[in-house]
Each structure stands twice: as structure tokens, then as C-alpha cells.
């Protein structure tokens, strides 16, 4: 859903740009707080990963395939600030270097696909973890719901923006229903992919799942007296 030029009128396009710039500036500061002087290489590598992961096609139903958007996944793996920043970088690169998404719509694209997906996805994820027991299963389940909700949330924010500054007069209720319907379907694919990816990282390097660091087991201490001669 990389919006091209001409979809939105000039005021909303510019407004989107201003909001996106503010959001990205906030994320830059947040990421720098989390990663310090590692920010540039780490965020760069994570952005490259998202860029590559978006090229992984996975089968949806016989014949059709989908691909990851990655907002919720990035937020859960590397934290909301770095995650949103990385997705924003990917969108910027796609717009400026690959002509994928209009230059005037760049702000709107960033707001929908980076800020909203990450904000909603991460809020849902952390909210669920707070009420669920501290287990790996909860982390995976929360990832699933977070990703599932994040995609229609982005679609909804798109519809809202369109209501304000869309260039064609369409019946908004119908469009919203259609957009949500389609994006709930896309969200299911996103949810499976996100949850399974988080599960596989949890299995090998649980410390690399930012959103679930508190679920890490504490070190086990063996306080039984040592037997002489070993077992």
C-alpha cells in the first residue's frame, strides 16, 4: 500500500510529511538512547533485514502469495523506537531510490506503515504481555495478535487521512469496510509470519527479542552441596 502521488491533496500530503518528520525525529532520539553509538550500524542492518524480509514471498492460498510488512515484527524484535525508525528508513529508500510510493505521499506512507503499525502493534503486544503469564507461549501469542491488529490499524489510518484529504469523493463507509476487510485478511498472514519468526528467534537467541526481555529466565543457581568425586 505504498501510496503514489495524486492520492492526497497538497495540505494533507505536507501535513503528513510534518507529522512523519516529527515522529522520525522522536524515534531517532529514542533509538539513540537504546543503542548509543551502535545506532547507525545496528539500525542499518535491521533496516536491511526488513528490506530483505519484505522480499520473502510466502504462500497464502493456492496460487497467491503475500509478503511481510514488518512493522509489528520490527517493534517486537528491536523495540518501538528502533523498529519504527527502521521501517521509516525502508519506506524512504523505497520512495526515493525505487520510485515505490510517491515523494509527496512519503509522509503519509510513513505515518500509516511505520508510526501507526509500530505504535499499535507494540502497544497491543505489551498490553497483552502484562495480563498474560510470563511464558514464551504468551510472547508468541501476543506477537500474533499485535501483528494481526497492526495491519488493519494502518488501513484505518489511511481511510481517516483519505476522509480529510483524499482527492476523490468516495463513500467513506464502504471504502473503510472494504479496506478493513482486505487488510484483516492480510493481517492474518502478517500475524502468522510475525509470531512464527518471533518464536524462532526466541528459541535460539531469546535475548534478541526486545519486547520480551523480561520474560527471560533468571540464571539458575544450584545450591546443593557438591559431591566429592563427581557423578
Amino acid at each position: 500500500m505504498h501510496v503514489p502521488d495524486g492520492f492526497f491533496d497538497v495540505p494533507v500530503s505536507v501535513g503528513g510529511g510534518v507529522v512523519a518528520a516529527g515522529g522520525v525525529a522522536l524515534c531517532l532520539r529514542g533509538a539513540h538512547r537504546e543503542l548509543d553509538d551502535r545506532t547507525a550500524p545496528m539500525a542499518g542492518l535491521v533496516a536491511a533485514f526488513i528490506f530483505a524480509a519484505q522480499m520473502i514471498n510466502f504462500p497464502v492460498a493456492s496460487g497467491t502469495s503475500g509478503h511481510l510488512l514488518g512493522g509489528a515484527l520490527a517493534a517486537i524484535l528491536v523495540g518501538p523506537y528502533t523498529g519504527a525508525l527502521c521501517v521509516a528508513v525502508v519506506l524512504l529508500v523505497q520512495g526515493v531510490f525505487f520510485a515505490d510510493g510517491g515523494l509527496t505521499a512519503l509522509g503519509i506512507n510513513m505515518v500509516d506503515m511505520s508510526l501507526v503499525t509500530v505504535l499499535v502493534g507494540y502497544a497491543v503486544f505489551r498490553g497483552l504481555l502484562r495480563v498474560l503469564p510470563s511464558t514464551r507461549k504468551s510472547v508468541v501469542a501476543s506477537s500474533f495478535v499485535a501483528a494481526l491488529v497492526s495491519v488493519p490499524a494502518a488501513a484505518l489510518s489511511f481511510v481517516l487521512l483519505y476522509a480529510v484529504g483524499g482527492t476523490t469523493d468516495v463513500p467513506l463507509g464502504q471504502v473503510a469496510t472494504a479496506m478493513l476487510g482486505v487488510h484483516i485478511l492480510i493481517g492474518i498472514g502478517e500475524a502468522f509470519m510475525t509470531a512464527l519468526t518471533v518464536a524462532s528467534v526466541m528459541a535460539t537467541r531469546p535475548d534478541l527479542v526486545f519486547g520480551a526481555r523480561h520474560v527471560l529466565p533468571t540464571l539458575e543457581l544450584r545450591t546443593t552441596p557438591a559431591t566429592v568425586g563427581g557423578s
Partner: protein
Amino acid sequence: MTSHPGNRAPSLAVHQLAFAYPDGHQALFGVDLTIAPGERVALLGPNGAGKTTLVLHLNGILTAGHGTVSVAGLPVTKDNMLEIRRRVGIVFQDPDDQLFMPTVREDVAFGPANLGLRGDELAERVRHALDQVGMLALIDRPPHHLSFGQRRRVAVATVLAMQPEILVLDEPSSNLDPASRRELADILRDLELTTLMVTHDLPYALELCARSVILDEGVIVANGPTHDLLCDQELMRSHRLELPFGFDPKSLAVPGR
């Protein structure tokens, strides 16, 4: 497990294979290569000679622009791709490209499970393959946490679990410490499986393979006993294959199989 009656079809038969990449770069210019059942052959050649391109044709990842490949008599075509991929077991250079599952067990089970194996039969395949490379004790560990040498051995097991007709190894000795190198050589020798070994490591080729072929600029330029090829200084030099310091094949007896 691997008895080879004399009149079987060759494990691998490559005939007049030519290939150009979509960008127009031609990598192979008519390669002929036949490997008999049970033989171990080294594929030598400088960087950019087309070695990887050739390997990717053996199991149909790339398909020939011209010429044919067949494995134990079965031609590599779209229709029998699954059987071809079972028959040709490729161990890639970087074990991290090959191992992606959370545990060693799941990684080794991946191939045979794709072939439809389930339950006890699958479990037995996995155990046997890991046993062949001496890694059975690590079956429940994440591959990510193993040493490089252990990962290389698990990568070999992932392919052995498919009971291949021919084992294809891409730079098997790279990045191994001396002891891991020797241990892998012992394992490969004990397997008694048809093997094609793509390598820069000339001593390793001499140690393991009675016969070698040299690929350069997309054609086979030499084919013969490894010892003879390595002793032909003129031939070696002209294909950027130089023997390492202190290694003199002339002083060695020809190793038997």
C-alpha cells in the same frame, strides 16, 4: 549400505552442459563429467571458473541452457525434481546458510520430512545421520550455539539423512581448525559414498579424492588422478592453482581409496 554393483548407471553424468545467466554472462561452455558409483572426485578451479554454477545444475536449482545432467540414470528435469533433490545432497560452504531450525534434530529432519517421512522412520533417519557424523549427542542443541566445525558436520548430516546417491561438498575444509579438518576427512572417508568435492584446498583433495577435474573458464581443462594433476606444475600454475608452502605431492605415495 552402499554396495555398488559394477554395471550400475554412473552416479553422475553431465553431458555438454552450457549455461548463461539472464544478464548474458555465460558461465559454462559445454562441461562433460562422469562419476562412477562410490567414486570420490575433487572439482578444482580458480574463483569465477563456474564451479558454483555447475553445482547448482546438479540438483536442478539452475536448469541447463544446453546439455544434460543425470543422476544414477535419472535425468534432471522439472518432473522428477523431488527425487533428484533426494539423490543429490549438497553441503554448502557456509553452514549458516543450511541450518536454520531451532534444534539440530529439526534441521536434520527437514529434508527427509520434505520427502514425506514421518514418525519412527524419520526419527531413525535423523539419529542414523547424526551418528554417521558423530553428532548424535548434540541432537537437542540449537545449531546456532555449536562451534563452526560442529555446524559443518551437522550440515553434512542434514544431507545424509536424505540417503543421497551422491554427496556434493562445497569447500568442506574452509574455516576448519586442523583437528576438525581431519575429523571431517575421516567421516567422509568412512561414508563410502559417491562424492564430488569442490575445493581450493589441494592437500585435502589429494588426501580424499583419487581423481580430480579442473574447471576453468567454464570448461573442464584436466581430468585425471589427483596426484598426477598436482604434480604437473605447469598445468596448476596456468589455472591459478598453486600448491601451498611446504606441500610437495611428489614426495607422497599415491593415497588409495
